[in-house]
């Protein structure tokens, strides 16, 4: 795999991030690892948005911070523009920091309450010594204007702004160095719906204007669908399914994705009444000791014996995917001999890849299988 492939801005290869779990008061020792991100590969294309969805604790934010170079990966590689950033020293990383910026979830804790907005947005210029004095002030005010803030307010403190305005300050700060990739870690989760739309539209405008790529993390499925070109679904540190947004939402293949989508509320009461909800049993297993085989198998309505033994690879299952022949002619041209083996694909690309031994067929209902499981579980009692 070439690393300087033209359309790909970020390539993550087999990224693993474990957080050691320490015990003991005085003599601390590692007793286990939280498998926050476990063998994840993905690509982010230039000028495109990759949406990352998953429940709390699925490793989305950890993955994002690994991509941003904020936390070191345990193993694996993260290529930015063809350069592996995981091996770089802090000094060597500095110029690359300009390429990747982050927008944070909480507009209240992501801005230093003791510093003025002008100083906060001017920080990138100060750190990278790109502008000083009046020049910096002018650039800060331009940025403020660009994100829809009154440039006169550069002397104010974050506490004097509303949540939406604060998030715009965060956007302006992320934009200051003209990055290529902006990682949005649930940028609208803390905002009102009307304000969410404003911020999302701003992000979309900036993307067209500056050709930005986004890694967009959220747990609001509709928001992700709205902004993303490609979507990857994470569960317990692994990517379960990834595809272009329409394919994923139109024909989810992984039982977890199906369940996740079925849990999203529908605005239309008729649609809400007719839709089938798949209620998963049990809780997300502990990431300290994740289940063997498929991570989802203890809760999966379709799980069979093999699921607990063999880790399903992320492959295309194009035999029954009506989208795929048009969506990815490159891979679609050579159907695999064994349909269940599929063609390995990388999340973030054109292929619709699913890590499942028994992907959901179009039109198949999981609700009955789920009911059967619930019934089976109740029987002994």
């Amino acid at each position, binding site marked *: 795999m070439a690393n300087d492939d033209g359309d790909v801005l970020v390539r993550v290869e087999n990224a693993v991030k474990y957080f050691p779990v320490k015990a003991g008061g005085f003599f601390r020792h590692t007793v286990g690892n939280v498998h926050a991100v476990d063998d994840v590969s993905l690509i982010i294309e230039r000028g495109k948005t990759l949406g990352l969805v998953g429940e709390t604790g699925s490793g989305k934010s950890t993955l994002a911070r690994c991509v941003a170079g904020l936390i070191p990966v345990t193993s694996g590689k993260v290529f930015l523009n063809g350069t592996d950033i995981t091996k770089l020293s802090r000094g060597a990383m500095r110029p690359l920091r300009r390429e990747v910026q982050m927008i944070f979830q909480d507009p209240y804790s992501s801005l230093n309450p003791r510093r003025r907005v002008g100083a906060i947005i001017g*920080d990138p210029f100060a750190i*990278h010594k790109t502008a000083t004095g009046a020049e910096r002030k002018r650039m800060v005010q331009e940025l403020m204007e660009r994100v829809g803030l009154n440039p006169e307010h550069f002397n104010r403190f974050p506490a004097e702004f509303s949540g939406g305005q604060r998030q715009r300050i965060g956007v302006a700060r992320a934009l200051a160095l003209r990055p290529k990739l902006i990682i949005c870690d649930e940028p609208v989760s803390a905002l009102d719906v009307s304000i969410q739309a404003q911020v999302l539209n701003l992000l979309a405008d900036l993307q067209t204007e500056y050709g930005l790529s986004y890694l967009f993390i959220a747990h609001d499925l509709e928001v992700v669908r709205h902004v993303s070109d490609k979507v990857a679904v994470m569960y317990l540190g692994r990517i379960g399914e990834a595809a272009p947004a329409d394919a994923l939402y139109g024909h989810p293949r992984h039982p977890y994705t199906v369940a996740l989508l079925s849990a999203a509320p529908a605005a239309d009461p008729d649609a809400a009444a007719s839709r089938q909800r798949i209620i998963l049993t049990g809780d997300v297993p502990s990431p300290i000791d994740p289940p063997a085989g498929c991570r989802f198998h203890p809760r999966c309505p379709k799980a069979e014996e093999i699921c607990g033994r063999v880790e399903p690879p992320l492959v295309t299952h194009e035999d029954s995917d009506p989208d795929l022949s048009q969506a990815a002619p490159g891979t679609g041209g050579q159907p695999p001999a064994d349909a269940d083996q599929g063609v390995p694909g990388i999340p973030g690309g054109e292929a619709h890849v699913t890590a499942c031994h028994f992907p959901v067929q179009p039109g198949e209902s999981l609700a009955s299988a789920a009911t059967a499981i619930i019934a089976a579980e109740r029987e002994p009692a």
Partner: protein
Amino acid sequence: MSITELEFDANQADAAQQRGEGSPVQGRTQWQLTWMRLRSDKISMIALAVILIMIILAIAAPAIAALTGHDVNTAYPVTGENVDGNPVPPGTNGFLLGTDDTGRDLLVRILYGARISLFVGIVTTLIATVLGVAVGLIAGYFGGIIDTLLARFTDAVLAFPYIVLALALAAVFGPSLKIILVMITFFSWAGIARIVRGQTLSIKEKEYIEAARSLGAGPFRIMFFDILPNLLAPVLVIATLYIPNAVVFESTLSYLGLGIQAPTPSWGNILSAAQDFYQVAWWYLVFPALALLITTLAFNLLGDGIRDAMDPRTERLIAARRLRRRMRRSTIKRENKEALQGLTAGGANAGTGKKG
């Protein structure tokens, strides 16, 4: 101007008022805001005034001594002692606060004592604050082995029986101002370091620190530009509260004879000498004790006031500010409404006029 136009203008003005526009935005620094809030706090202002007066008096001590005509270390056996050789009471023979056991002017001695006490209090607190902030920041930010070493050392210092060490040091090096400064600083920085470390530990987990790191800021930039501004409020408060501690510490040492040595006056050694005479000369004990009490109380009250003023979330002060703003806004609205009513009345008259 039509009614709708006027209404529109009024709404605009109101909205502009709410947005804080209209006049060019004034940049008020955090310190200006703190000062504004502090100014509205009577107790703090009184405390500040007391402290300033104390400092001015201390600085002006030689001048005041010249005014009274009494030198600080000169005994005045004729005017300053009664026939029994005891101190004379306040107001006698030009001794405003009376004299001490050797017939020296108590007022002049207390003022000279203030010089020592305030100097020791402020200088040791300044050095201890710088040290404590540095140690606390480094321990809290870097964590790991650095934190373990620094934090345990801090705890060890805090656990030290300081009077015992003071006795030992004074015995070894002989009492001097330098020893006092070193000793008080040594026992003061640890408390500040512990508070700073705790604050740093909580602040460094904030997202804005992560944001700074993602921008490429180094650890020292983050410590000084991102963490330190958030520490200034608690540090300033604790520093203000450490000054009276240092003053008392100095007095304690001098009282025990380990600090400032006679004949140089210090509140501590004056008190120490006075305790044998309180039955015949109450003023000898009361006035230096009052000076010590008032000074420490003033610093403590000011420290509390600064803490309230520094924290923008202090309910009391915010409520007062909101009330003022609401009153101002309602005045503007009322004025607009009155103008509107005037116009409507005029318009109505014009209408009837046409009809008739």
